[in-house]
């Protein structure tokens, strides 16, 4: 693969193995390899390099087709809701995106709607302080919908460009937690039709095939508009995000590449493909 040597059956076996090892999943891998082989054949491919190019193009095209890498803030106030299972990096990603938006000259507030987990509000407050961004919060145990509501009202009354809403991590098989999330979304929607402008599913790059189940459930219950793929600074390839983009049509919009506030990059399909085969 990737050399001037002629591509053989073994080359395509290697490709398949690399994609499986990258958490792309067996079903998506087989589809991708079939499509890449067709491309390879149609373009008169010969070498391992041709095989690699055919696959890279196939993956890039599929990611581009669903709008990966694009993120438009939208008219003020733009509500961005962060959702996902426990520990994926939602709170940290909010801080990072807030820093990015502030750097672009936008005014914003953070909403601490994780009212459940120990020190969740404190964690967001510390980031808010570092950023110089107001954090809208209530007492621990408060209704998260009420916090989201307060945040939207604050954004309107202060004329802010954006409000980034943090929510508690939740496993998608917990129906009452998913109901709670749907309610948070409805509260925002009722107060501001057309909002939330963005619902970002934060997905950990180390996640295996459960990532697909996460994306399906969160899409159904909260209307996911994009994915933030975190912890790409580790060794995990994050291939399940490719499966999600391909099968559910959800674009990957940002990549989390570290724990510091600067460690957020617009998702780059080219770089992702490089990383898949690194």
């Amino acid at each position, binding site marked *: 693969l990737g050399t001037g040597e002629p591509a053989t059956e073994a080359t395509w076996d290697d490709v398949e193995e690399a994609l499986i090892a990258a958490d792309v999943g067996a079903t998506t891998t087989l589809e991708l390899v079939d499509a890449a082989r067709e491309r390879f054949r149609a373009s008169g491919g010969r070498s391992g390099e041709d095989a690699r190019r055919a696959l890279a193009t196939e993956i890039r095209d599929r990611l581009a087709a669903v709008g990966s890498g694009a993120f438009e803030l939208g008219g003020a106030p733009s509500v961005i809701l962060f959702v996902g299972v426990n520990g994926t990096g939602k709170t940290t990603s909010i801080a990072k995106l807030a820093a990015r938006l502030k750097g672009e000259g936008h005014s914003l507030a953070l909403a601490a709607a994780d009212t*459940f987990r120990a020190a969740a509000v404190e964690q967001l407050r510390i980031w808010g302080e570092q950023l110089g961004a107001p954090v809208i919060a209530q007492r621990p145990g408060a209704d998260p919908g009420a916090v989201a509501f307060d945040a939207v009202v604050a954004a309107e009354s202060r004329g802010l460009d954006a409000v980034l809403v943090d929510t508690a991590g939740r496993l998608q098989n917990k129906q009452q937690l998913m109901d709670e999330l749907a309610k948070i979304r409805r509260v925002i929607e009722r107060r501001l039709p057309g909002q939330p402008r963005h619902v970002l599913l934060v997905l950990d790059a*180390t996640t*295996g*095939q459960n990532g697909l189940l996460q994306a399906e459930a969160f899409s159904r219950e909260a209307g996911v508009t994009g994915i933030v793929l975190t912890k790409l600074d580790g*060794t*995990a390839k994050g291939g399940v995000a490719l499966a999600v983009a391909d099968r559910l049509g959800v674009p990957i919009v940002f990549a989390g590449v570290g724990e510091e506030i600067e460690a957020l990059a617009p998702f780059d399909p080219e770089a992702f493909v490089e990383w898949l085969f690194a």
Partner: protein
Amino acid sequence: SLSTRLQGITSRLRGSARITEADLDVALREIRLALLEADVNFRVVKDFVARIRERAVGTDLLTGLNPGQQIVKIVHEELVEVLGGSRHHLELDAKPAVLMMVGLQGSGKTTTAAKLAVRLRKEGKRPLLVAADVYRPAAVDQLVQLGDQIGVEVHTRPVGTPALEVARSGLEVARQRGVDVMILDTAGRLHVDDAMMDELVRIVGSVTPKETLLVVDAMTGQESVKVAEAFHARLPVTGLVLTKMDGDARGGAALSIRAATGLPVSFLGTGERTDGLEPFHPDRLAQRILG
């Protein structure tokens, strides 16, 4: 589920005199797909399927009745065997015994530390929690709040104190207070972050843990082996905690890690609250991995 898939395959063979090697290959392909879908590492799957094939051929499965059911039984048995015995009797024969939590970011270390404190106290041990994550915003606060919820003391140091000093001073306090178990929470870190891995090595050198638990998220995919091998290579890891098992992730990472490193699963995290900790049952996890 795998059993329904295999029943489907072999019911089509009913009436034929025997199932051929080709039929077995079809069944093995299904097993491979089921294991990959369950996030078992692809190399572990390869070895595992090879072993199933050996056993299937060896037990004259190819001439037996209801081969589909037999194959499932073999797979289940092999899984249970690899996953091995439960190991929730932590070896804490020192006073104070240090139990250290390590793992990647967000895996559930801090929450699990509190859960273990609750469990150990129920067993009549006196725990002390030590908040050595000095990096993550409000990490110390998180452990302090959990400690407060469960009525267990948490040792902390002022902002700016290095993690090594928090751990060392924690041990000193544990000794002074006659604590039975010091549960040491550490910051999440990447297995490829040499500086942070070195920090753990120094902490181990300073407090000599009796137990070092690698906390792994049940939804971890193919990378589980690389991560576990890296931690296991540099630290005296004695067991695994597989967290968020109250979700619907299949938990194949447990099989991958066990097969690749021999590390036993000590506990399962089964909820966000401090009572969400269960001992590990290999047959139940085998069932879940098979789906």
